[in-house]
C-alpha cells in the first residue's frame, strides 16, 4: 500500500464521529461573516448597513487575483459592518446579518437531482469557480481558481483529490465521500475538464474502508478517475506527501505542485465545484464535524458560513463540564480558541472539544538529543536545531537551515519525549524570516 517514505507519526484516530451522517443545522439568528475567509487579500464589502440580502447574493468582492468573492449565506438585513473577533481573538472586519427567512437568489438551482455533465468550456469553468468564491475546503482556503489557472510554461498532468483526512477526530470529508460521492465525482470530472487532464486519483486512507469501497464502485462510470487507498500515517493529507505517495514525485523545495505536473484539491472543494458549476450555487455552507471525547453526541453538521460556533455546540447538547480546550480544526494543526463567540468560516473543518485533563502541555525538559523529531519530520528538517536557533534569534541561520520548507504539521512536537515546544519556535522563525524576505525584496 502506498505511502510517503520520510517521517510521519501515528496519532490515535479518534474517529468517533465517522458514523454520524450529515445533518443540516437549523439557521442561526444572525451570522457574522469575516471579510478574510481565504488566503490572499481580504474581500471588499459592497453592501451597506440596512441592505436586504438574499441567500447567495454577492456581499463582498474579490480584491485581486489571489482573493475570493464572499456571498451571503442567509437572507435578511445587514445589521452592521464592524470588526469582530476571529479565531485568534483579534478583531477583523466583518459583516453582521440578521437572519430573516430563507430566501434564495433565483439564479441558484436548488433541485436535488445529480447532473453529470456541463456545457461550460475550461475557461468558463475557471471563471465560474472564481465568481462563486470557491476556496480550498481542506482548511487552507487557498482561492481555487488560482490553483487551476496553470501558469504559462507549466503543464498539469494529473489531478489528485485529497480524501485522506489524516487529522484525528475529523470526519467531514469521510461523510461527504459516503453521502455525496456521486456529486463529488462530477466535481472531479469538471476540474479535470478545467485543467485539461485525463487522469485523476482520489487518495483515501485505509481507515475509511467504506468510503474506499463506495467511491471505487462509483468510479467505474468515470473513466480516468481511480481511488488509491493509502497507509494510515499523519500527515498523509499534506499536499506534497500526497503527491509523493501517489505519483512518486517530490515537489522541489520552494516550488509548487504544478512544477511536477500535479494539482491537488480537497474532496470538499470538488463538491463545492460541482455545486458552483452545475447548480450555480456559491460557497455558502460546508460540513463541520463536532466531536470530542466527552460530548454528549458527535455530529457532522451542514452549516451556513457565519453561524456562531456556540450554535453547533448547543446542538450537540451543550459544552461538556470538563472542557479545557476548544479546537477549530483538528488537534494536530488546528487553532485553540480563546473565546467561543466566533463564527464558522469557509475553512472550518471541525470543532473538537478536549477535556481538561488532556488540555495541558507537559512541562518542557532539556533536549535529550534523541533525534525523534528529525525522524518524524516529513520534510526532512531538524526541528531540535531549528528550535535552538529560534531561541537564540538567529533568523539568517534558520533560513539557511530551510525553515521555510516546514509545513507546520506538528509531527515534531507530537513526538518529542521532552515535551519541547518545537513548533512554537519554528513558527516564530518562519514569521521572522518572512519579514526579512519581504524587506529584502522591497
Amino acid at each position: 500500500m502506498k505511502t510517503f517514505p520520510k517521517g510521519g507519526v501515528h496519532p490515535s484516530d479518534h474517529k468517533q464521529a465517522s458514523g454520524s451522517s450529515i445533518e443540516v443545522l437549523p439557521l442561526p439568528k444572525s451570522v457574522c461573516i469575516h471579510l478574510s475567509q481565504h488566503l490572499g487579500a481580504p474581500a471588499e464589502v459592497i453592501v451597506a448597513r440596512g441592505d436586504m440580502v438574499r441567500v447567495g447574493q454577492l456581499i463582498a468582492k474579490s480584491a485581486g487575483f489571489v482573493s475570493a468573492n464572499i456571498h451571503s449565506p442567509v437572507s435578511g438585513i445587514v445589521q452592521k459592518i464592524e470588526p469582530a473577533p476571529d479565531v485568534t481573538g483579534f478583531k477583523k472586519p466583518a459583516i453582521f446579518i440578521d437572519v430573516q427567512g430563507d430566501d434564495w437568489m433565483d439564479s441558484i438551482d436548488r433541485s436535488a437531482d445529480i447532473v453529470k455533465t456541463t456545457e461550460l468550456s475550461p475557461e468558463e469553468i475557471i471563471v465560474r469557480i472564481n465568481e462563486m468564491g470557491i476556496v480550498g475546503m481542506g482548511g487552507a482556503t487557498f482561492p481555487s481558481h488560482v490553483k487551476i489557472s496553470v501558469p504559462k510554461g507549466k503543464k498539469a498532468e494529473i489531478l489528485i483529490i485529497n480524501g485522506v483526512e489524516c487529522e484525528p477526530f475529523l470526519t467531514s470529508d469521510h461523510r461527504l465521500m459516503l453521502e455525496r460521492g456521486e456529486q463529488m465525482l462530477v466535481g472531479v470530472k469538471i476540474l479535470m475538464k478545467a485543467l485539461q487532464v485525463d487522469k485523476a486519483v482520489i487518495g483515501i486512507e485505509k481507515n475509511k474502508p467504506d468510503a474506499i469501497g463506495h467511491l471505487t464502485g462509483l468510479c467505474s462510470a468515470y473513466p480516468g478517475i481511480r481511488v488509491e487507498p493509502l497507509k494510515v500515517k499523519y500527515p498523509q493529507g499534506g499536499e506534497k506527501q500526497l503527491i509523493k505517495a501517489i505519483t512518486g514525485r517530490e515537489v522541489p523545495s520552494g516550488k509548487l505542485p504544478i512544477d511536477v505536473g500535479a494539482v491537488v484539491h480537497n474532496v470538499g472543494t470538488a463538491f463545492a465545484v460541482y455545486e458552483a458549476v452545475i447548480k450555480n450555487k456559491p460557497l455558502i455552507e460546508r460540513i463541520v464535524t463536532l466531536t470530542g471525547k466527552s460530548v454528549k453526541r458527535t455530529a457532522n453538521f451542514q452549516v451556513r458560513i457565519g453561524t456562531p460556533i456556540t450554535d453547533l455546540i448547543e446542538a450537540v447538547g451543550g459544552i461538556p463540564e470538563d472542557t479545557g480546550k476548544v479546537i477549530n480544526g483538528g488537534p494536530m494543526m488546528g487553532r485553540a480558541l480563546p473565546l467561543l463567540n466566533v463564527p464558522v468560516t469557509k475553512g472550518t473543518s471541525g470543532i473538537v472539544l478536549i477535556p481538561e485533563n488532556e488540555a495541558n502541555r507537559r512541562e518542557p525538559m532539556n533536549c535529550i538529543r534523541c533525534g525523534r523529531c528529525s525522524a518524524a519530520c516529513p520534510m526532512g528538517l531538524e526541528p531540535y536545531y531549528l528550535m535552538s536557533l529560534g531561541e537564540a534569534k538567529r533568523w539568517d541561520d534558520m533560513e539557511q537551515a530551510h525553515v521555510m520548507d516546514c509545513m507546520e504539521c506538528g509531527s515534531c512536537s507530537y513526538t518529542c519525549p521532552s515535551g519541547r515546544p518545537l513548533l512554537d519556535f519554528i513558527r516564530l522563525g518562519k514569521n521572522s524570516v518572512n519579514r526579512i524576505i519581504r524587506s529584502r525584496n522591497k
Partner: protein
Amino acid sequence: MSANNLLTVSYSPHQYGSESVQLIMRRVLIALVPAFAVSLIFFGVGALVVTAIAVVSCMAFEYLIDRYFFKVKSTLWDCSAAVTGVLLAFNLPSNLPVWMIIMGSLVAIGVAKMSFGGLGKNPFNPALVGRVFLLISFPVQMTSWPKAIESRMAYLDATTGATPLAILKEGIKNGEPVSSLMNDLPGYGQMLIGNMGGSLGEISALALIIGGLYLIWKKVITWQIPVSVLATVALFTGILWMVDPSKYADPMFHLLTGGIILGAIFMATDMVTSPMTPVGQIIFGVGIGVITCLIRVFGAYPEGVSFSILIMNAFVPLIDKYVKTKRFGEEIKNG
C-alpha cells in the same frame, strides 16, 4: 460552559505522543534486568552491593546538586540518574570498595553531567567518564576482577583472577601462541552465558543481547550503532586473525569478551552523546569499533571500549554538523 474553566490556548499540535523521557529511561532499566540477574548469579553479594551503592549515590548527588547548588527543581523523576548509576555499576568489578564507587558516582553525575547543564547537555557519556576516572585513579582495584561463582558470597575479600582479554594480552606479550592460550580460557558457550571474569555487566553476551533486542523492539534505540560497532570489530579482528591466527584471537572471542557488547548496546547508544542521523550513527559505530580494536590489539590496555566511546563522543558534534538527512524536495546540485 462550566463556571471556573478558562479555555486553554496553545499552539498546535494539541495531541501528544505517549513517549516521555521517563518512559525511555524505564525501558532501558528493564532491558538491563537480564544482565543484572546474571551478575547476581555469578557475582552474588558483590554485585548487589556495588549496583545498589552506585544507583543510590548517583541519585543522591543529582538531587543535592540540583536543589542546593543550582537551586532548581529536582529532576530525579526522569530516572536518568538511576540509569547512569546502573550503567556505572555494570562497568565496575564486584569487589570495589564503597567509597570508590561513591567517588565514581560523584564524577559521573557532578562532573560529566551536571557541570554541563544537566540532562541533554553533556558531550561525554557520564557512566563512562566515571569509570575511566576510577580506572586511572585506582588502577589496581579497578583491574582485579573477582572470579565468577567462586566469589559469590564475598564482597571485598573475593578471590580474584584476570579477565580473558587480560590473559590473552599477557600471553601474547610473552610470546605464547593464541591457540594454547585459548585452552586455558572458558569456552564460547560459557562466555555467552557469562561464566567468566569481568565487570558486573559485561560478562553475559546473551543477557545483554536479549536486553538489546527489547530496546530495538520498543524503538528506544535503533540498530545502526550496535550493529556497526560489532560488525566493525568482527571485521577488523577477523582480518587480523586470518592474516596470523597465532598472534590474534578470532572475532568470536573478541565479540564475547570485554565490554564490547555492553558498550555497543547500552553505552554507545546513549542518545545524548550519539549522533542524530542514521548515517552519522553508522560512522560513529565504525569509529568506535576501529579504536577499540586498535587499543585491544596494539595498545597497552587489554580493553578499549570505554576509551573508544569517549573519543568518538568528542566527534559527535562534528558528525552532526556535516551529516544531515536528505530533505524532502532537496534539489540535486547540477551546476
